[in-house]
């Protein structure tokens, strides 16, 4: 589904990714772990197409399409969802307005009909119920005044409503207490565990992986994958640290 080959990328002239190769198949959940500064967030932003993150070499193919050739909003419409480590606050724009605009923009790019206000609200209600989240959230301005945990749960509601084929989740577990972590982890399972979907989960901690249970775990260091293995690799890392394992 996602095929990254020999990816090199730099930010402000500094090379961060140095020949990263990674392949995620449909129905799979891959976790990427690694020390601070390894390039985890850079990988997420490069996949999302953030301005300033420049690919200097390599390729990324997403369902056979050259991902790097698409604008950020086109990547979203193609089914890519980027979960932010630090979700952005947008004063004056409600979640409902934001998500309906996003969903309908994606549908338009894909050549589908726009959803009416009523249809959107029904969809949002269903997804929020599924994730046991408060619908009142949708009336509030995007992320404004949210705690760290609320922002991450809100990311999950967005993912549920937008229903992507592929999710790149950048430290979605950071800043969460144990209950919120479980809700977010179960959210990922509910929304994304399907034969035609896949997840790239960037995380520091084993705890989220207890809930989400990855099929493959990779260790990222100095801008490339230095080791890959099954779920047991994450446990090894947790016990012995990055230096001993990778």
């Amino acid at each position, binding site marked *: 589904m996602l095929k990254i080959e020999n990816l090199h990328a730099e930010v402000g002239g500094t090379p961060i990714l140095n020949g990263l190769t990674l392949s995620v198949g449909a129905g799979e959940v891959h976790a990427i772990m690694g020390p601070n500064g390894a390039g985890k967030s850079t990988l997420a932003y490069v996949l999302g197409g953030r*301005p300033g993150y420049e690919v200097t070499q390599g390729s990324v193919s997403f369902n056979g399409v050259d991902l790097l050739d698409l*604008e*950020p*909003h086109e*990547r979203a*419409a193609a089914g890519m969802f980027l979960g932010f480590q630090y979700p952005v606050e*947008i004063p*004056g724009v409600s979640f409902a307005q934001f998500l309906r*605009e996003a969903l309908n*923009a994606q549908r338009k790019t894909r050549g589908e009909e726009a959803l009416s206000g009523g249809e959107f609200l029904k969809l949002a209600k269903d997804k929020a119920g599924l994730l046991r989240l408060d619908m009142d959230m949708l009336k509030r301005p995007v992320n404004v005044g949210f705690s760290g945990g609320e922002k991450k749960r809100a990311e999950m509601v967005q993912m549920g409503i937008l229903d992507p084929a592929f999710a790149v989740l950048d430290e979605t577990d950071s800043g969460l207490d144990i209950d919120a972590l479980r809700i977010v982890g179960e959210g990922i399972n509910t929304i994304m565990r399907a034969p035609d979907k896949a997840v790239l989960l960037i995380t520091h901690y084993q705890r989220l992986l207890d809930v989400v249970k990855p099929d493959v775990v990779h260790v990222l260091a100095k801008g490339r994958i230095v080791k890959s293995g099954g779920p047991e690799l994450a446990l090894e890392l947790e016990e012995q640290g990055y230096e001993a394992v990778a």
Partner: protein
Amino acid sequence: MTDVATLPTAHDEDWRYADPAALEVLTPTQLDVWHEAELAPGETRSKVLVLDDAHPGIHRVRMTLGEGARAEIFAIASASAYTRLEIEVRLGKGAHFEFGGVTIGGGDATREFVTRVAHAEPDATSNQTVRAVHWGTATGNFLGRLEVARDAQKTDAAQNFKAILLEKGAAANAKPELEIFADDVKCAHGAAIGALDQAAAFYMAARGIPPEAARKLLIRAFVADAFHALDDAEARDAMLEQALSVLGEELA
């Protein structure tokens, strides 16, 4: 004695950010036209002004508010030539003045609001919210003078100005001017000038919203602050659409 034949220049504080070329063609008669209004005690009046291409130039409003009266003005300055709205208000005891203004547009025009609010008696309040959105080499200004008389205790006055400049070359100026002779007063003012929030724009793009739509959504939220105090929801939406209509034309 004031000499009406003396035309303002950029050396005059109230005109320092005005368009010099526009000042040159001013005539004394233009500077002597005021829309005057006197509000009786307890009276409320609300007015929306759209200074678009049908109404460029200088517009002046002078109001006197009786005890407990309330005056609201919501204005858009979007004409493609020099546009200036001046408002002079004298507030009686416990009166309130509300101003929400938006200067928006490109080209090379200067659009500005100049307010002089006199808190002449105790317990009066005033609130002014101005938003500016410009591109090209356009300029948006807010010059807000506030006078609090010695007797005007418990005055509560606020001014807030924010500008978004969409392109290099556009400009915005804020000039708050506070003269306070009473000691038990609250006077707040704030100003911020910046570019469109790039982090928010990327966040929107990552959710599938194309750049033009993201920009419009962000600017809509930004501009909406100025009309927040407009109670009539229909009028509020109409003003918002009116302000944003300029954006569609010129930035497409």
